[in-house]
């Protein structure tokens, strides 16, 4: 883990109340005003009010960039995976299909993929990302690593398995203390006929 005093981005879906303050605030960011680049989903509203906010996880080896035929998705030196570059993006949606977290969205009216860039304009100027600043449940938080470790009952994890694919990310997901990596087994999602 990086320097514990440095600021990092944390997601705790169990705190989320589905209010969409994050989505509304994202749409107020100057570089893409009018276009929210994050979303909030109900897991299954018929059964529960549980919701989950989805911001970009900023993978260390971003699949979206690796599958891009136009080399339009760049990662900054400090690990932020940016929206597609407008002159390069061919709106093919490869990235949308490839992202293991379901983050990129094709903005068909702009013919460009846009996604969360961790408020690069704000963080570069020493401000916190808009969504994590306003989030009233702090399901999205942008705070020093040692603060989150000290104050939360869950712990930050940034290792995910999708089948045998190990993905590490700049953004942390809060997990129960017993969990060191999110091991998502594809078998859990396969449909098989009842015997």
């Amino acid at each position, binding site marked *: 883990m990086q320097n514990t005093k440095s600021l990092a981005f944390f997601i705790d879906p169990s705190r989320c109340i589905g*209010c969409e303050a994050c989505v*509304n605030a994202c749409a107020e960011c100057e570089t893409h005003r*009018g276009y929210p680049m994050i979303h909030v989903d109900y897991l299954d509203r018929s059964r529960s*009010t549980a919701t989950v906010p989805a911001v970009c996880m900023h993978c260390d080896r971003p699949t979206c960039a690796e599958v891009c035929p136009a080399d339009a998705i760049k990662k900054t030196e400090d690990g932020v995976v940016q929206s597609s570059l407008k002159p390069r993006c061919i709106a093919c949606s490869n990235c949308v299909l490839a992202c293991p977290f379901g983050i990129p969205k094709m903005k068909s009216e702009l013919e460009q993929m846009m996604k969360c860039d961790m408020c690069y304009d704000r963080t570069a100027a020493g401000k916190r990302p808009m969504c994590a600043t306003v989030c009233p449940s702090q399901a999205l938080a942008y705070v020093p690593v040692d603060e989150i470790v000290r104050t939360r009952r869950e712990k930050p994890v940034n290792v995910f398995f999708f089948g045998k694919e190990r993905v590490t990310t700049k953004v942390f997901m809060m997990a129960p203390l017993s969990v060191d990596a999110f091991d998502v087994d594809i078998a859990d999602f396969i449909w098989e006929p009842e015997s």
Partner: protein
Amino acid sequence: MARRPIDESSLVERFGPHLVYEPPGGWRSEAENPAEKLVQTHCCFCGQQCGIQLKVRDNQVIGFEPWEEFPFNRGMLCPKGVKRYLQSSHPDRLLSPLMRDDSGFRSATWDEALSFTAGRLQQLQQEYGRDAVAVYGGASLTTEKTYLLGKFARVALGTRHIDYNGRLCMVSAGTAYKLAFGVDRSPNPWSDIPLADVVIIAGSNTAECSPITTDYIWRSRDRGGKLIVLDPRMTPITRNADLFLPVRPGTDLAVFLGMMHVIVRDGLANRDFIEKHTIGFNAVAESAKIWDPATAARVSGVPPEAIEKAARWFATAKRGFALHARGIEHQSKGVENVLGLINLCVATGNIGREGAGCVMITGQGNGQGGREHGQKCDQLPGQRSIADPEARAHVAKVWGVNPAEIPQAGYPALEIMEAIHRGEIKGLLSICFNPLVSLPDSNFIREALEKLEFFGVIDFFMSETAHHADVILAGSLHEEEEGVAANVEGRVIHIRQAVTPPGQARLDSQIICDLARRLGRKEGFNFREPREIFDELRDASRGGPADYSGITYEKIDRQMGVFWPCPSEDHPGTPRLFEDGRFFHADGKAHFQVTEYRESGDPISEEYPIYLTTGRVVSQYLSGTQTRRIGALVDQYPEPRVEIHPRLAKEHGISDNDWVRVTTRRSEMTLRAMVVRTIRPDTVFIPYHWPGLKSVNRLTHRTVDPRSKIPEYKVSACKIQKA
């Protein structure tokens, strides 16, 4: 006279609500033409009163920036707060006085509109007596405006009938706190919540109606605290509850009495605290005897083991904390419900300590400050009783009048409307109140409005109620007039003026002062700016429970808010009440109150076998006069839907998204179903922010709590069928 001049669709076409999505000049305008200044102020919506910075350019609000230094919300906002800036420069904004004519409304000069208003009010008072006109106020107004309005009604009009829309919000809590503690304020600052070991949330959809409070609750859980939630619905705050009490609507008191029974039975009460600091415990203990957990469970539908567990957790916690809101207060026994919860806190010594206490979650922006200084029918400034001769003498002196000139208490809000309906009150002047959407039994409210001989409105947007007005005076938005408000904690905060009113619109305080002078009051209404009103208010409040005499705008800025009471300029304010074990009653004790269980005013029956309960959604605010004009907020939850449990839905052949007719003893409405397992199977829920055929208040009833006079929005009897 007060019928709508033309059909509603023409009025809506002209005055909205129209949806605004973008700031003035469009999304790109700020990039090309940046803001000139950031104004540190507060959100205009709920009682959390979150700090926010408004971006201003060319006397227009063009965006916002979080205000991370303000300690209450530290930059956090809900979607309403994020989008609140879009109410400024809105095309529906009223820009000049309007007077009714055959075509609807025409623009008028201030002189014409104010002369007409003063003239009609005087005529009605001469013909029918002083009390034939009434004044309605609002709890979104700054405290200065509410103070001025109270003085205006009692001194300039001389009517005893002034009340406000906080009557639909905080009065059950206020009445109960006064009975128990002798003062109407949340006793603890919010910074106490994370320190609590057990938190009870009773009748509060905290995550949607006061979203910022969510983080305070989660921080208590981060420390290992337990969360108990009492509600007929699993609202988003329930997702991390350690114990959920799925109470049947209208039976909360049975759960509290059941918990008190367990505390007394098992000897869990804090005898030492009770003996030193309270009176009346024995009678309460005696009254809980018949409420064993099994009996409480039969009435409330909450399992007896859950009642036992809640009682034990709360009573044995080092620090127990209770939060409550309209769920338990909007009932014909709203005061009893709150007292039932207060009794639990006092019996266990959970009051007046760090991390331990009992608080009300104030609903409206200035729900706290707006009820302290004079627009409530039975109170004078400083939260003093209008019946108290000493208080009358003090306030009369500040106002420069004879104490005998100050009228006695008038009718509360709903009774004013009932008096209009029966012809006793003929004229009404209303500011910042939309009773056609927010009062219960809205068909009755519409009939009453149509009987008015004169109806004047001060507002910034055309509300549905204002459709019935004879004259509409274009007033000021939250960001257009300086003043103070008191947030949910009793922290007095500074509302800054970010822009001046557009067009011919005027400051509310100037409209009221001008009207007072035209009514013949040359003295006492010559304030040039809100600060002068505040200085008089400080004097008027001096010595009362809500003592503001030591508060100044500068001190608020310096301290990021001042908690009242603050009796002198060198006093820092009082974040936590009762720390010295002394309560505000003359004997210094907390007073236990015996609570009696009784049925709702609209009981279920064979014909109407289902409970109907009403409430709010996160993206809309109250009657929607402001939030139904903001595109993103409307898109998030465009129209009311009825929440139905799958078991009940199946009984009636209803699937998700089907049209459903909901009928009560008053009226019916048809809306789409939302079939969810998060509501009791004997209950349906409809949010209330919409007018006309989408208004659930056509279905609610006019029963009120006998002491607080709050309507019973949370419990009606209904039947449902697939439409």
